[in-house]
């Protein structure tokens, strides 16, 4: 069986501090994995290093994505290869509209795939369709990226971008934090709609809320930089009743 993502003995540090202390994780096409853990476990570091954020130093281990060395690729090359991160704290980009931003992103990916730029009409149609899907009002197309957005609007914008870019591996970093139930359902619908035998996702969270709406195939518990338990949905229930101290 071939893996979409294969993490082997990954050690990561920021400055002098080792955050990830030997992670092993294998994700097959079509699988949804939940990574749960308390604050400070290294969950966000894992998402950061997978997407190529600067300042994170890999000191040991490998990450293979579609059989290639993921860590050798730039952040944009990872995006072109189908990786997507829904940010825990989406970034505001004053002066750049969502339309301009997504157009640059979609066309850069098409260029990398040897395709022509999308026709303006087709692009706007796609935007409209995906915005409706995450229940973003059409006027957001002209808004500056995340500027003045509420917490829920920012997260919806992340899921909108995910839908636009149609990734093969989506990483949702605490996408559920700070969301009310309605917004949570929109996020869950977004993830569920992308489910297919080829597409996978990593849902990073320390609550079980989102996992009520998106059923993970595999659940991992990350604690102090290591995966300390792997299993099925029964792990979510165990965490809900007894917390992370039991691991």
């Amino acid at each position, binding site marked *: 069986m071939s893996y979409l993502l294969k993490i082997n003995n990954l050690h990561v540090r920021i400055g002098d501090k080792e955050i990830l202390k030997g992670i092993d994780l294998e994700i097959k096409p079509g699988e949804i994995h939940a990574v749960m853990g308390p604050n400070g476990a290294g969950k966000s570091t894992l998402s950061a290093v997978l997407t190529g954020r600067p300042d994170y130093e890999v000191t040991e281990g490998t990450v293979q994505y579609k059989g290639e060395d993921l860590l050798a690729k730039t*952040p*944009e090359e990872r995006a072109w290869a189908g990786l*997507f991160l829904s940010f825990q704290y*989406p*970034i505001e*980009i004053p*002066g750049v509209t969502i339309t301009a*931003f997504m157009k*640059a992103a979609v066309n850069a990916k098409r260029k990398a795939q040897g395709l022509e730029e999308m026709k303006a009409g087709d692009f706007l149609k796609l935007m409209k369709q995906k915005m409706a899907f995450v229940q973003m009002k059409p006027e957001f197309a002209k808004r500056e990226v995340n500027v003045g957005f509420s917490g829920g609007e920012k997260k919806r914008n992340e899921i909108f*971008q995910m839908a636009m870019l149609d990734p093969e591996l989506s990483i949702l970093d605490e996408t559920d934090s700070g969301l009310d139930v309605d917004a949570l359902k929109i996020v869950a619908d977004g993830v569920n709609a992308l489910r297919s035998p080829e597409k996978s996702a990593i849902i990073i969270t320390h609550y079980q809320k989102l996992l009520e709406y998106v059923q993970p195939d595999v659940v991992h518990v990350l604690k102090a930089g290591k995966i300390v338990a792997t299993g099925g949905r029964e792990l979510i229930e165990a965490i809900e009743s007894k917390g992370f101290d039991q691991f």
Partner: protein
Amino acid sequence: MGHGRYIAPPEGLYQVAAGERLDLQYVVLPGESREIEVTVDLNGPGAEAHIKALYLCRADEKVRFRIVMHHRAPGCKSTQAINGIAGGRADVRFDGTIVVAPDAQQTEAYQENHNIVLTEEARVETKPQLEIYADDVKCSHGATVGQLNPDELFYMRSRGIPESEARTLQMLSFLSPVIPIGREEEIESWIRTL
């Protein structure tokens, strides 16, 4: 670049009479060293002056802005927006003063000077000053010297926008308040040379 050099308005002293409006726009392109000295006298009630400037440096240019805005009559309005990007070993300085005379009540005066420094060798100094002698005025000034925001850059790259393209987008958005209408493409192509 296939464009003629921009003819900037002359520098020096501008007198603006009651009810009149003055618009000045300056563009300093890479390779140009310039000293732009402008003094504006808003002499009559309701006079307005609006100054916009942008600069782009990538080598050892020396760029100076010295702007003095006198509000001498009531009900006048002025805005200043000076944004620029300093790369290479550029040396940039902005001195901007707004003076509101005792009689110049109901003055509105705004001044913004924002700068991005691309290299360790480039230098930018900004000195905004307000001298206000009237009490019924709306005045503000803002000055910043910073770098391209690395979080924005990573966010864009994580969406597949190549680093050079992301930087161009950042610089364009930073300059957008001061880019003359119709010259967006020309400025964009200059940005790509930084």
